[in-house]
């Protein structure tokens, strides 16, 4: 089977790659584009480690075929910092030690960014519901929730 050519915008850059029709977007990001931040925890939509923002919507990249991304705009964890300046969420995750093994962290950061982009000052309950699609087997969630709430405060002080 001939390989399919896909053109899309990833983290603000126009990117072209070749893939098989049955390659997932997650595998294309990792293996063809070289962005290995997004992780495969389950491959079945359960864990959210593969979370990306596709055309503005938080999405499991493990359940999208790469050809479906033709013309799409994709944001991965590699795209959330502002150059060398960490995103407030990255900063508060670091400061609050909101990770242990770190496999779930890229997915949590992207999911939390999707939340704060829409709702800059969520309540704790809103944070918990917004992150329900992300599983962490190490931290017990509490530090993650605190880090997201701290980043939301940061949003406030930035205006």
């Amino acid at each position, binding site marked *: 089977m001939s390989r399919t050519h896909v053109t899309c915008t990833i983290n603000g850059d126009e990117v072209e790659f070749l893939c098989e029709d049955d390659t997932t977007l997650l595998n294309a990001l990792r293996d063809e584009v070289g962005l290995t931040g997004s992780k495969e925890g389950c491959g079945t939509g359960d864990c959210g480690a593969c979370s990306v923002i596709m055309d503005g919507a938080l999405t*499991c990249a493990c*359940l999208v075929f790469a050809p479906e991304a033709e013309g799409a705009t994709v944001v991965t964890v590699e795209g959330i910092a502002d150059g060398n300046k960490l995103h407030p969420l990255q900063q508060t995750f670091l400061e609050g030690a909101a990770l242990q093994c770190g496999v779930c962290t890229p997915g949590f950061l992207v*999911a939390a960014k999707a939340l704060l982009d829409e709702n800059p000052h969520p309540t704790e309950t809103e944070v918990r519901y917004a992150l329900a699609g992300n599983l962490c087997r190490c931290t017990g969630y509490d530090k993650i929730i605190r880090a997201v709430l701290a980043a939301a405060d940061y949003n406030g002080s930035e205006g």
Partner: protein
Amino acid sequence: MTPFDYQRIPEAAAVPAQLTPTVRPLAGGTDLLTRLKACLDRPDALVDLKASDLGRAIDRVDGGWRLGALVTLSRIQHHPGLRADVPALAEAVSQAATPQLRNRATIAGNLLQRPRCWYFRNERVQCWLAGGEGCPARSGRNEHHAVFDTDGPCVATHPSDPAAALVALGATVTVLDGGGGERELAVADLLVPPTDERRVEHVLAADDVITAVTVPSAPRSTYLKAMDRAVWAFALVGVAAAVSADGEVRLVASGVANTPWRLAGAEAALAGPGLTPEAIDRAAAAATDGAAPLAENGYKLPLLRTLTHRALTAVA
């Protein structure tokens, strides 16, 4: 996963004629990809409905709403008109899956998702529903399985929350076939128990495409769901209650049978449109009439009675 061709057909009306048992439609992919990865489905080609002009609009129509087949669960969840006018549907989608999945999952794909029975989903098991022989769940691990109609060949439950709400609301789907014919089908008639000849939970042919879902208004409606966890899980038991425009009360449960299950005994016990506390008590007690639970899932019966009570109280 076996290799396949990814195809785009810009005109939705031209899609059905291209479909065959091995050329299948792809919507949000949130169920189909999990099936492909488990080799439950081995298509030669997938036609991406999202690359076509298949409906994506949410329109007010006479007496209710018309949702294009590609409308996502998130859009339903956040639509103020649907939340006010068909709360059972909005509540069912809000409690289904996760934010990531609701952003992608379409309403038509949700109705046609396949069961989550762990034997069916296991690549190494070929149970009856997967085309093999026998039902290992019947004598095996069946805590998530059916409690009604359990003498059929399969005791898997239908995994959809919206399906139960749509049956309670009296919703219909519009179906376009490969010959260009269009028909309207009640969701209650779309979803049927699998049989030896047709081992799926719906009546659609290979060249049928759902183009829209039409939902009658029922501001007095609700969907309640019991889960292992506050969110993210499939229903252990769910109950949809809806009072139709002519005052009829319909009760439909999820998580208890091969299809959304009409609680006919409970409806009859209401004996009239007045949802008095006494009538609600009678109906809740009758919700489990005819149930025949398996070894591990008797716990579903009190859940079903309690959710029926709460749902009726909410719409009273």
